[in-house]
Protein backbone atom coordinates (compact mmCIF):
# COMPACT_ATOMS: atom_id res chain seq x y z
CA UNK A 1 0.00 0.00 0.00
CA UNK A 2 1.52 3.34 -0.99
CA UNK A 3 1.19 6.52 1.02
CA UNK A 4 -1.07 8.09 -1.57
CA UNK A 5 -3.47 5.20 -1.56
CA UNK A 6 -4.01 5.48 2.18
CA UNK A 7 -6.32 8.17 3.31
CA UNK A 8 -4.29 10.67 5.32
CA UNK A 9 -5.62 11.49 8.80
CA UNK A 10 -3.97 14.90 8.85
CA UNK A 11 -3.40 17.05 5.77
CA UNK A 12 -2.11 20.58 5.49
CA UNK A 13 -2.02 22.17 2.04
CA UNK A 14 0.02 25.31 1.38
CA UNK A 15 -0.43 26.36 4.99
CA UNK A 16 0.71 29.93 5.66
CA UNK A 17 0.52 32.08 8.76
CA UNK A 18 1.46 35.76 8.81
CA UNK A 19 1.60 38.18 11.73
CA UNK A 20 1.55 41.59 10.11
CA UNK A 21 4.38 41.44 7.61
CA UNK A 22 6.38 38.62 9.09
CA UNK A 23 5.58 35.17 7.80
CA UNK A 24 6.03 32.55 10.52
CA UNK A 25 4.82 29.65 8.38
CA UNK A 26 5.13 29.57 4.59
CA UNK A 27 3.43 27.13 2.28
CA UNK A 28 3.66 24.05 4.48
CA UNK A 29 2.14 20.92 2.93
CA UNK A 30 2.21 17.85 5.14
CA UNK A 31 0.32 14.55 5.08
CA UNK A 32 0.26 12.12 7.98
CA UNK A 33 -1.31 8.70 7.40
CA UNK A 34 -3.12 6.72 10.11
CA UNK A 35 -0.59 4.85 12.23
CA UNK A 36 2.31 6.96 11.00
CA UNK A 37 4.72 8.60 13.45
CA UNK A 38 6.18 11.83 12.13
CA UNK A 39 8.92 13.68 13.98
CA UNK A 40 8.56 17.44 13.60
CA UNK A 41 11.94 19.11 14.05
CA UNK A 42 13.07 22.70 13.97
CA UNK A 43 14.86 25.37 15.95
CA UNK A 44 12.97 27.35 18.55
CA UNK A 45 10.87 29.80 16.59
CA UNK A 46 10.96 27.73 13.39
CA UNK A 47 7.18 27.53 13.40
CA UNK A 48 6.53 24.16 15.10
CA UNK A 49 4.19 25.53 17.76
CA UNK A 50 2.42 27.70 15.21
CA UNK A 51 1.81 24.63 13.05
CA UNK A 52 0.49 22.66 16.04
CA UNK A 53 -1.77 25.51 17.15
CA UNK A 54 -3.15 25.91 13.64
CA UNK A 55 -3.99 22.21 13.49
CA UNK A 56 -5.68 22.48 16.90
CA UNK A 57 -7.78 25.36 15.62
CA UNK A 58 -6.41 27.75 18.25
CA UNK A 59 -5.09 29.97 15.45
CA UNK A 60 -6.56 30.80 12.06
CA UNK A 61 -4.37 30.30 8.98
CA UNK A 62 -3.59 33.28 6.72
CA UNK A 63 -3.55 30.95 3.72
CA UNK A 64 -3.86 27.31 2.73
CA UNK A 65 -6.04 24.71 4.36
CA UNK A 66 -6.01 21.99 7.02
CA UNK A 67 -8.00 18.79 7.21
CA UNK A 68 -8.13 16.92 10.52
CA UNK A 69 -9.66 13.46 10.02
CA UNK A 70 -11.99 14.97 7.45
CA UNK A 71 -12.99 17.94 9.58
CA UNK A 72 -12.26 21.64 9.82
CA UNK A 73 -9.69 22.36 12.58
CA UNK A 74 -11.32 23.66 15.76
CA UNK A 75 -14.72 22.16 14.90
CA UNK A 76 -16.25 19.92 17.56
CA UNK A 77 -15.66 16.82 15.40
CA UNK A 78 -12.00 17.73 14.80
CA UNK A 79 -11.44 18.36 18.50
CA UNK A 80 -12.97 15.01 19.37
CA UNK A 81 -10.61 13.35 16.90
CA UNK A 82 -7.48 15.16 18.11
CA UNK A 83 -5.28 14.46 21.12
CA UNK A 84 -2.86 17.12 22.30
CA UNK A 85 -0.03 17.04 24.79
CA UNK A 86 1.32 20.55 25.37
CA UNK A 87 5.01 21.07 26.09
CA UNK A 88 4.52 22.33 29.64
CA UNK A 89 1.47 20.33 30.56
CA UNK A 90 -0.35 21.87 33.53
CA UNK A 91 -3.39 20.86 35.54
CA UNK A 92 -5.38 22.21 38.48
CA UNK A 93 -3.28 21.52 41.55
CA UNK A 94 -6.28 21.09 43.84
CA UNK A 95 -7.83 18.24 41.82
CA UNK A 96 -6.73 14.61 41.99
CA UNK A 97 -5.46 12.82 38.90
CA UNK A 98 -8.63 10.78 38.70
CA UNK A 99 -10.87 13.86 39.00
CA UNK A 100 -8.93 15.77 36.36
CA UNK A 101 -9.02 12.87 33.92
CA UNK A 102 -12.73 12.29 34.62
CA UNK A 103 -13.43 15.93 33.75
CA UNK A 104 -11.56 15.52 30.46
CA UNK A 105 -13.45 12.26 29.79
CA UNK A 106 -16.80 14.01 30.25
CA UNK A 107 -15.71 16.85 27.98
CA UNK A 108 -14.63 14.34 25.33
CA UNK A 109 -17.91 12.45 25.67
CA UNK A 110 -16.19 9.32 26.96
CA UNK A 111 -17.46 7.14 29.81
CA UNK A 112 -15.87 7.95 33.17
CA UNK A 113 -15.18 4.24 33.77
CA UNK A 114 -12.50 4.49 31.05
CA UNK A 115 -10.42 6.69 33.38
CA UNK A 116 -9.00 4.20 35.88
CA UNK A 117 -7.63 1.75 33.24
CA UNK A 118 -5.88 4.69 31.57
CA UNK A 119 -4.29 5.78 34.85
CA UNK A 120 -3.12 2.21 35.31
CA UNK A 121 -1.77 2.17 31.77
CA UNK A 122 0.52 5.14 32.46
CA UNK A 123 1.51 3.90 35.92
CA UNK A 124 -0.49 6.39 37.98
CA UNK A 125 -2.97 3.98 39.56
CA UNK A 126 -1.56 4.43 43.05
CA UNK A 127 -1.49 8.22 42.78
CA UNK A 128 -4.98 8.42 41.24
CA UNK A 129 -6.53 9.93 44.36
CA UNK A 130 -3.66 12.21 45.34
CA UNK A 131 -3.83 15.89 44.43
CA UNK A 132 -1.96 16.88 41.29
CA UNK A 133 -0.21 19.54 43.39
CA UNK A 134 1.76 16.70 45.00
CA UNK A 135 2.79 15.10 41.67
CA UNK A 136 6.32 15.18 40.29
CA UNK A 137 7.07 16.56 36.83
CA UNK A 138 7.19 13.00 35.47
CA UNK A 139 3.82 12.14 36.99
CA UNK A 140 2.21 15.23 35.50
CA UNK A 141 3.66 14.28 32.13
CA UNK A 142 2.19 10.76 32.52
CA UNK A 143 -1.19 12.28 33.35
CA UNK A 144 -0.86 14.44 30.25
CA UNK A 145 -0.15 11.33 28.24
CA UNK A 146 -3.15 9.54 29.79
CA UNK A 147 -5.52 12.26 28.60
CA UNK A 148 -4.28 11.83 25.01
CA UNK A 149 -5.45 8.20 25.23
CA UNK A 150 -9.08 9.14 26.02
CA UNK A 151 -11.44 8.03 23.32
CA UNK A 152 -10.44 7.00 19.83
CA UNK A 153 -8.23 9.81 18.60
CA UNK A 154 -7.38 9.83 14.90
CA UNK A 155 -4.66 12.47 15.22
CA UNK A 156 -2.26 13.14 18.11
CA UNK A 157 0.01 16.17 18.47
CA UNK A 158 2.68 15.68 21.11
CA UNK A 159 4.90 18.64 21.94
CA UNK A 160 8.16 17.54 23.62
CA UNK A 161 6.51 14.47 25.18
CA UNK A 162 9.70 13.35 26.98
CA UNK A 163 11.20 16.63 28.15
CA UNK A 164 12.39 16.45 31.74
CA UNK A 165 11.75 12.73 32.10
CA UNK A 166 14.07 10.00 33.37
CA UNK A 167 15.10 7.23 30.93
CA UNK A 168 12.52 4.73 32.20
CA UNK A 169 9.69 7.23 31.84
CA UNK A 170 10.94 8.15 28.36
CA UNK A 171 10.79 4.54 27.37
CA UNK A 172 7.22 4.29 28.71
CA UNK A 173 6.21 7.36 26.73
CA UNK A 174 7.46 5.84 23.48
CA UNK A 175 5.71 2.59 24.32
CA UNK A 176 2.43 4.50 24.57
CA UNK A 177 3.25 6.30 21.32
CA UNK A 178 3.85 2.99 19.55
CA UNK A 179 0.60 1.66 20.94
CA UNK A 180 -1.31 4.67 19.61
CA UNK A 181 0.31 4.24 16.20
CA UNK A 182 -0.59 0.55 16.20
CA UNK A 183 -4.18 1.59 16.93
CA UNK A 184 -4.20 3.74 13.79
CA UNK A 185 -3.58 7.19 15.26
CA UNK A 186 -1.58 9.57 13.11
CA UNK A 187 1.12 11.06 15.34
CA UNK A 188 3.09 14.27 15.05
CA UNK A 189 5.86 14.47 17.66
CA UNK A 190 7.63 17.80 18.02
CA UNK A 191 10.86 17.36 19.91
CA UNK A 192 14.52 18.20 20.25
CA UNK A 193 15.48 14.79 21.57
CA UNK A 194 16.91 13.73 18.21
CA UNK A 195 18.50 10.44 19.27
CA UNK A 196 15.18 9.16 20.58
CA UNK A 197 13.23 10.24 17.53
CA UNK A 198 15.71 8.61 15.20
CA UNK A 199 14.74 5.14 16.43
CA UNK A 200 11.11 5.78 17.17
CA UNK A 201 9.56 7.52 14.17
CA UNK A 202 8.67 6.62 10.61
CA UNK A 203 9.24 9.95 8.98
CA UNK A 204 11.11 13.19 9.70
CA UNK A 205 9.74 16.63 8.87
CA UNK A 206 12.06 19.58 9.39
CA UNK A 207 10.87 23.16 9.62
CA UNK A 208 13.36 25.98 9.15
CA UNK A 209 12.21 29.58 9.26
CA UNK A 210 8.63 28.60 8.60
CA UNK A 211 9.35 26.39 5.59
CA UNK A 212 9.25 22.63 5.37
CA UNK A 213 12.82 21.88 4.23
CA UNK A 214 12.67 18.10 4.60
CA UNK A 215 9.86 15.55 4.79
CA UNK A 216 10.84 11.93 4.27
CA UNK A 217 12.03 8.75 5.96
CA UNK A 218 15.37 8.85 7.74
CA UNK A 219 16.98 6.55 5.15
CA UNK A 220 15.79 8.64 2.20
CA UNK A 221 16.90 11.86 3.86
CA UNK A 222 20.35 10.42 4.53
CA UNK A 223 20.66 9.21 0.93
CA UNK A 224 19.72 12.59 -0.44
CA UNK A 225 21.96 14.50 1.94
CA UNK A 226 24.85 12.15 1.12
CA UNK A 227 26.65 13.00 4.33
CA UNK A 228 30.03 11.40 5.04
CA UNK A 229 30.35 8.55 7.49
CA UNK A 230 32.85 9.30 10.23
CA UNK A 231 35.47 6.69 10.98
CA UNK A 232 37.46 7.02 14.16
CA UNK A 233 40.70 5.10 14.44
CA UNK A 234 42.58 4.49 17.64
CA UNK A 235 46.28 4.09 16.81
CA UNK A 236 48.87 2.08 18.67
CA UNK A 237 50.88 4.43 20.87
CA UNK A 238 53.38 6.39 18.79
CA UNK A 239 51.79 5.28 15.49
CA UNK A 240 49.19 8.06 15.20
CA UNK A 241 51.42 10.25 13.01
CA UNK A 242 52.06 7.40 10.64
CA UNK A 243 48.34 6.53 10.40
CA UNK A 244 47.47 10.16 9.68
CA UNK A 245 50.19 10.44 7.04
CA UNK A 246 48.87 7.29 5.36
CA UNK A 247 45.14 7.94 5.45
CA UNK A 248 44.78 11.71 5.94
CA UNK A 249 42.02 12.91 8.27
CA UNK A 250 42.18 14.85 11.46
CA UNK A 251 43.99 14.13 14.75
CA UNK A 252 41.52 14.17 17.60
CA UNK A 253 43.81 13.64 20.56
CA UNK A 254 47.04 11.87 21.30
CA UNK A 255 46.30 8.58 19.57
CA UNK A 256 43.03 8.97 17.60
CA UNK A 257 42.45 9.96 13.98
CA UNK A 258 39.09 10.85 12.50
CA UNK A 259 38.30 10.27 8.83
CA UNK A 260 35.29 11.23 6.80
CA UNK A 261 34.24 9.21 3.83
CA UNK A 262 31.30 9.09 1.45
CA UNK A 263 28.85 6.23 1.73
CA UNK A 264 30.16 4.42 -1.37
CA UNK A 265 33.81 4.73 -0.26
CA UNK A 266 33.37 2.95 3.04
CA UNK A 267 34.58 -0.49 1.98
CA UNK A 268 37.60 0.83 0.09
CA UNK A 269 38.60 2.91 3.09
CA UNK A 270 38.19 -0.05 5.43
CA UNK A 271 40.50 -2.25 3.38
CA UNK A 272 43.15 0.50 3.43
CA UNK A 273 42.78 0.61 7.19
CA UNK A 274 43.21 -3.11 7.58
CA UNK A 275 46.30 -2.83 5.34
CA UNK A 276 47.97 -0.84 8.09
CA UNK A 277 48.12 -3.94 10.23
CA UNK A 278 48.62 -3.57 13.96
CA UNK A 279 49.25 0.19 13.78
CA UNK A 280 45.48 0.57 14.27
CA UNK A 281 44.14 -0.77 17.52
CA UNK A 282 40.43 -0.02 17.13
CA UNK A 283 37.93 1.28 14.57
CA UNK A 284 34.61 3.01 15.20
CA UNK A 285 32.18 3.80 12.37
CA UNK A 286 29.59 6.50 12.85
CA UNK A 287 27.00 6.80 10.08
CA UNK A 288 25.39 10.28 9.79
CA UNK A 289 23.04 10.72 12.76
CA UNK A 290 19.73 12.52 12.74
CA UNK A 291 21.57 15.40 14.34
CA UNK A 292 23.92 15.63 11.35
CA UNK A 293 20.98 15.44 8.97
CA UNK A 294 19.09 18.05 10.93
CA UNK A 295 22.07 20.43 10.75
CA UNK A 296 22.47 19.68 7.07
CA UNK A 297 18.86 20.44 6.11
CA UNK A 298 18.58 23.51 8.32
CA UNK A 299 21.91 24.83 7.00
CA UNK A 300 21.00 24.13 3.39
CA UNK A 301 18.02 26.37 3.76
CA UNK A 302 20.05 29.23 5.19
CA UNK A 303 22.37 29.48 2.20
Amino acid at each position, binding site marked *: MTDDAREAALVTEGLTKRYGRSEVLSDVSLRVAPGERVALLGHNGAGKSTLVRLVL*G*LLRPSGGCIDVAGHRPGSAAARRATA*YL*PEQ*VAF*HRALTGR*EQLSTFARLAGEPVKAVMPLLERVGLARAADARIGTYSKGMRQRLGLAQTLLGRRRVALLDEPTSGLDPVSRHDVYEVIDEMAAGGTALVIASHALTELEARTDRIAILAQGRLVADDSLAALSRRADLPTRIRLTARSGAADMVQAELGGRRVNGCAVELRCAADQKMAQLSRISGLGDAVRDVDMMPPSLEDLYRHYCGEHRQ
Partner: protein
Amino acid sequence: MITRILSIAAAEFRIQRRNRWLASATLLMLLFALALTFAGSAPTGTLGVDLLTVAVASMTTLAVYLAPFLALMIAFDAIAGEAERGTLGLVLTYPLSRGEMLLGKFCAHLSVLAIAMTLGLGAAGAAAAMAGGAGPDSLLALARLIGTAILLGASFLALGYAASALSGSAAAAAGLAVGLWLVLVVLYDLGLLGAVVFDDGGAFTRHVFPWLLAANPADAFRLWNVSASREVALISGMAGAGDALPPWAAPVSLFFWPVAALALAGAAFRRVDA
Protein backbone atom coordinates in the same frame (compact mmCIF):
# COMPACT_ATOMS: atom_id res chain seq x y z
CA MET B 1 -23.73 21.19 26.02
CA ILE B 2 -25.27 20.79 29.47
CA THR B 3 -22.96 17.88 30.37
CA ARG B 4 -19.91 19.90 29.39
CA ILE B 5 -21.05 22.95 31.38
CA LEU B 6 -21.81 20.73 34.37
CA SER B 7 -18.49 18.89 34.22
CA ILE B 8 -16.61 22.21 34.25
CA ALA B 9 -18.88 23.42 37.07
CA ALA B 10 -18.30 20.26 39.14
CA ALA B 11 -14.51 20.46 38.78
CA GLU B 12 -14.51 24.18 39.53
CA PHE B 13 -16.71 23.79 42.60
CA ARG B 14 -14.31 21.16 43.91
CA ILE B 15 -11.39 23.50 43.35
CA GLN B 16 -13.16 26.30 45.24
CA ARG B 17 -13.91 23.94 48.12
CA ARG B 18 -10.35 22.59 48.27
CA ASN B 19 -8.87 26.08 48.07
CA ARG B 20 -11.02 26.89 51.11
CA TRP B 21 -12.79 29.72 49.28
CA LEU B 22 -16.17 28.29 50.12
CA ALA B 23 -15.35 28.06 53.83
CA SER B 24 -13.68 31.46 54.09
CA ALA B 25 -16.39 33.29 52.14
CA THR B 26 -19.12 31.74 54.29
CA LEU B 27 -17.25 32.43 57.52
CA LEU B 28 -16.53 36.03 56.52
CA MET B 29 -20.20 36.70 55.72
CA LEU B 30 -21.33 35.04 58.95
CA LEU B 31 -18.93 36.93 61.23
CA PHE B 32 -19.64 40.34 59.74
CA ALA B 33 -23.39 39.73 59.62
CA LEU B 34 -23.49 38.63 63.25
CA ALA B 35 -21.33 41.54 64.40
CA LEU B 36 -23.44 44.11 62.57
CA THR B 37 -26.72 42.58 63.68
CA PHE B 38 -25.91 42.84 67.34
CA ALA B 39 -23.95 46.08 67.21
CA GLY B 40 -26.82 47.71 65.31
CA SER B 41 -29.60 46.49 67.59
CA ALA B 42 -29.87 49.74 69.58
CA PRO B 43 -32.58 51.59 67.58
CA THR B 44 -35.19 48.81 67.94
CA GLY B 45 -37.16 50.42 70.71
CA THR B 46 -37.27 53.95 69.33
CA LEU B 47 -38.48 52.95 65.85
CA GLY B 48 -40.95 50.32 66.99
CA VAL B 49 -39.77 47.52 64.67
CA ASP B 50 -38.50 44.03 65.42
CA LEU B 51 -34.78 43.25 65.64
CA LEU B 52 -34.75 41.26 62.38
CA THR B 53 -35.83 44.37 60.44
CA VAL B 54 -32.98 46.33 61.94
CA ALA B 55 -30.62 43.48 61.20
CA VAL B 56 -31.72 43.34 57.54
CA ALA B 57 -31.09 47.07 57.21
CA SER B 58 -27.55 46.77 58.59
CA MET B 59 -26.82 43.62 56.61
CA THR B 60 -27.95 45.39 53.42
CA THR B 61 -25.17 47.90 53.95
CA LEU B 62 -22.75 45.08 54.68
CA ALA B 63 -23.69 43.06 51.60
CA VAL B 64 -23.28 46.07 49.32
CA TYR B 65 -19.57 46.00 50.11
CA LEU B 66 -18.92 42.31 50.77
CA ALA B 67 -20.88 40.56 48.01
CA PRO B 68 -19.09 42.41 45.17
CA PHE B 69 -15.76 42.00 46.96
CA LEU B 70 -16.10 38.23 47.43
CA ALA B 71 -17.39 37.80 43.87
CA LEU B 72 -14.45 39.69 42.37
CA MET B 73 -11.95 37.78 44.51
CA ILE B 74 -13.34 34.48 43.25
CA ALA B 75 -13.64 35.61 39.62
CA PHE B 76 -10.49 37.55 38.80
CA ASP B 77 -8.36 34.41 38.40
CA ALA B 78 -10.86 32.52 36.22
CA ILE B 79 -9.35 33.24 32.80
CA ALA B 80 -6.06 35.12 33.27
CA GLY B 81 -4.93 32.68 35.97
CA GLU B 82 -5.68 29.63 33.82
CA ALA B 83 -3.96 31.16 30.81
CA GLU B 84 -0.93 31.99 32.97
CA ARG B 85 -0.65 28.52 34.53
CA GLY B 86 -1.08 26.90 31.13
CA THR B 87 -4.22 24.92 31.99
CA LEU B 88 -6.38 26.84 29.50
CA GLY B 89 -4.71 25.71 26.27
CA LEU B 90 -5.31 22.02 26.89
CA VAL B 91 -8.94 22.37 28.02
CA LEU B 92 -9.79 24.40 24.94
CA THR B 93 -8.56 21.63 22.62
CA TYR B 94 -11.44 19.52 23.94
CA PRO B 95 -14.88 19.84 22.33
CA LEU B 96 -15.84 22.67 24.67
CA SER B 97 -16.69 26.20 23.60
CA ARG B 98 -15.37 29.17 25.49
CA GLY B 99 -18.94 30.19 26.32
CA GLU B 100 -19.60 26.76 27.84
CA MET B 101 -16.43 26.98 29.90
CA LEU B 102 -17.39 30.44 31.18
CA LEU B 103 -20.92 29.34 32.06
CA GLY B 104 -19.56 26.28 33.87
CA LYS B 105 -17.31 28.41 36.03
CA PHE B 106 -20.13 30.88 36.59
CA CYS B 107 -22.42 28.10 37.89
CA ALA B 108 -19.75 26.88 40.32
CA HIS B 109 -18.77 30.33 41.55
CA LEU B 110 -22.39 31.42 41.91
CA SER B 111 -23.08 28.33 44.02
CA VAL B 112 -20.17 29.25 46.29
CA LEU B 113 -21.56 32.78 46.68
CA ALA B 114 -25.10 31.56 47.18
CA ILE B 115 -24.00 29.21 49.94
CA ALA B 116 -21.95 31.96 51.64
CA MET B 117 -24.81 34.48 51.43
CA THR B 118 -27.53 32.07 52.51
CA LEU B 119 -25.59 30.65 55.45
CA GLY B 120 -23.98 33.94 56.52
CA LEU B 121 -26.95 36.27 56.23
CA GLY B 122 -29.46 33.55 57.09
CA ALA B 123 -27.71 32.53 60.31
CA ALA B 124 -27.34 36.13 61.45
CA GLY B 125 -30.99 36.74 60.58
CA ALA B 126 -32.06 33.67 62.52
CA ALA B 127 -30.03 34.83 65.52
CA ALA B 128 -31.67 38.27 65.35
CA ALA B 129 -35.15 36.74 65.05
CA MET B 130 -34.58 34.56 68.08
CA ALA B 131 -33.14 37.40 70.14
CA GLY B 132 -35.55 40.19 69.21
CA GLY B 133 -38.51 38.77 67.34
CA ALA B 134 -39.52 38.64 63.70
CA GLY B 135 -42.70 38.97 61.66
CA PRO B 136 -43.77 37.88 58.17
CA ASP B 137 -42.60 41.24 56.79
CA SER B 138 -39.13 41.05 58.26
CA LEU B 139 -38.73 37.39 57.21
CA LEU B 140 -39.66 38.37 53.66
CA ALA B 141 -37.13 41.23 53.86
CA LEU B 142 -34.44 38.73 54.89
CA ALA B 143 -35.29 36.39 52.01
CA ARG B 144 -35.20 39.35 49.63
CA LEU B 145 -31.84 40.43 51.02
CA ILE B 146 -30.31 36.99 50.44
CA GLY B 147 -31.76 36.71 46.93
CA THR B 148 -30.64 40.17 45.85
CA ALA B 149 -27.18 39.70 47.42
CA ILE B 150 -26.74 36.60 45.23
CA LEU B 151 -27.83 38.60 42.17
CA LEU B 152 -25.41 41.38 43.10
CA GLY B 153 -22.67 38.78 43.47
CA ALA B 154 -23.58 37.36 40.03
CA SER B 155 -23.12 40.81 38.46
CA PHE B 156 -19.68 41.18 39.97
CA LEU B 157 -18.65 37.60 39.16
CA ALA B 158 -19.33 38.35 35.51
CA LEU B 159 -17.55 41.71 35.73
CA GLY B 160 -14.62 39.87 37.34
CA TYR B 161 -14.47 37.44 34.37
CA ALA B 162 -14.44 40.38 31.97
CA ALA B 163 -11.55 41.93 33.94
CA SER B 164 -9.80 38.56 33.92
CA ALA B 165 -10.18 38.13 30.16
CA LEU B 166 -9.05 41.67 29.42
CA SER B 167 -5.90 41.43 31.60
CA GLY B 168 -2.69 39.83 30.43
CA SER B 169 -1.89 38.27 33.81
CA ALA B 170 -3.59 37.21 37.02
CA ALA B 171 -1.87 40.04 38.90
CA ALA B 172 -3.18 42.63 36.45
CA ALA B 173 -6.64 41.05 36.69
CA ALA B 174 -6.54 41.32 40.50
CA GLY B 175 -5.63 45.01 40.19
CA LEU B 176 -8.41 45.64 37.72
CA ALA B 177 -10.89 43.80 39.99
CA VAL B 178 -9.97 45.98 42.97
CA GLY B 179 -10.31 49.04 40.75
CA LEU B 180 -13.78 47.92 39.64
CA TRP B 181 -14.86 47.42 43.22
CA LEU B 182 -13.56 50.83 44.25
CA VAL B 183 -15.22 52.63 41.35
CA LEU B 184 -18.60 50.87 41.32
CA VAL B 185 -19.09 50.40 45.07
CA VAL B 186 -17.36 53.41 46.63
CA LEU B 187 -16.43 56.21 44.24
CA TYR B 188 -19.64 56.08 42.18
CA ASP B 189 -21.71 56.91 45.24
CA LEU B 190 -19.31 59.63 46.35
CA GLY B 191 -19.47 61.20 42.91
CA LEU B 192 -23.26 61.15 42.89
CA LEU B 193 -23.36 62.56 46.40
CA GLY B 194 -21.10 65.41 45.35
CA ALA B 195 -23.29 66.12 42.33
CA VAL B 196 -26.45 66.13 44.44
CA VAL B 197 -24.93 68.53 46.93
CA PHE B 198 -23.75 70.80 44.14
CA ASP B 199 -27.14 70.65 42.37
CA ASP B 200 -28.92 71.61 45.61
CA GLY B 201 -32.30 70.05 44.90
CA GLY B 202 -32.46 70.99 41.21
CA ALA B 203 -33.58 69.02 38.18
CA PHE B 204 -30.57 66.67 38.35
CA THR B 205 -31.44 65.55 41.86
CA ARG B 206 -35.10 64.99 41.07
CA HIS B 207 -34.94 63.40 37.61
CA VAL B 208 -31.44 62.15 36.73
CA PHE B 209 -29.95 61.11 40.06
CA PRO B 210 -32.43 58.29 40.87
CA TRP B 211 -31.84 56.69 37.47
CA LEU B 212 -28.08 56.94 37.82
CA LEU B 213 -28.48 55.27 41.17
CA ALA B 214 -30.50 52.41 39.69
CA ALA B 215 -27.99 51.98 36.86
CA ASN B 216 -25.25 50.87 39.26
CA PRO B 217 -25.77 47.26 40.41
CA ALA B 218 -24.65 48.00 43.97
CA ASP B 219 -27.08 50.90 44.34
CA ALA B 220 -29.83 48.97 42.57
CA PHE B 221 -29.36 46.28 45.20
CA ARG B 222 -29.73 48.85 47.97
CA LEU B 223 -32.73 50.52 46.33
CA TRP B 224 -34.55 47.23 45.83
CA ASN B 225 -34.14 46.17 49.44
CA VAL B 226 -35.03 49.59 50.76
CA SER B 227 -37.99 50.49 48.57
CA ALA B 228 -39.60 47.07 49.00
CA SER B 229 -39.82 47.44 52.75
CA ARG B 230 -41.08 50.59 54.42
CA GLU B 231 -39.45 49.65 57.72
CA VAL B 232 -36.06 48.99 56.21
CA ALA B 233 -36.32 52.31 54.36
CA LEU B 234 -37.15 54.07 57.57
CA ILE B 235 -34.03 52.78 59.28
CA SER B 236 -31.60 53.23 56.42
CA GLY B 237 -32.92 56.69 55.56
CA MET B 238 -32.90 55.97 51.83
CA ALA B 239 -36.61 56.42 51.22
CA GLY B 240 -36.26 59.58 49.12
CA ALA B 241 -34.43 58.27 46.10
CA GLY B 242 -36.48 55.09 45.84
CA ASP B 243 -39.77 56.96 45.73
CA ALA B 244 -38.78 58.86 42.58
CA LEU B 245 -38.37 55.62 40.57
CA PRO B 246 -40.90 53.13 39.23
CA PRO B 247 -40.77 49.92 41.33
CA TRP B 248 -39.33 47.85 38.44
CA ALA B 249 -36.23 50.01 37.93
CA ALA B 250 -33.94 48.40 40.53
CA PRO B 251 -34.94 44.76 39.82
CA VAL B 252 -34.50 45.26 36.08
CA SER B 253 -31.03 46.70 36.66
CA LEU B 254 -30.02 43.88 38.98
CA PHE B 255 -31.18 41.21 36.52
CA PHE B 256 -29.71 43.03 33.52
CA TRP B 257 -26.18 43.38 34.93
CA PRO B 258 -25.21 39.68 35.25
CA VAL B 259 -26.45 38.98 31.71
CA ALA B 260 -24.76 42.00 30.14
CA ALA B 261 -21.51 41.49 32.04
CA LEU B 262 -21.42 37.79 31.09
CA ALA B 263 -21.88 38.73 27.44
CA LEU B 264 -19.02 41.23 27.78
CA ALA B 265 -16.81 38.63 29.50
CA GLY B 266 -17.63 36.09 26.77
CA ALA B 267 -16.67 38.55 24.03
CA ALA B 268 -13.42 39.40 25.81
CA PHE B 269 -12.64 35.70 26.42
CA ARG B 270 -12.96 34.93 22.71
CA ARG B 271 -10.07 37.29 22.07
CA VAL B 272 -7.74 35.63 24.60
CA ASP B 273 -4.92 33.55 23.11
CA ALA B 274 -4.90 30.10 24.61
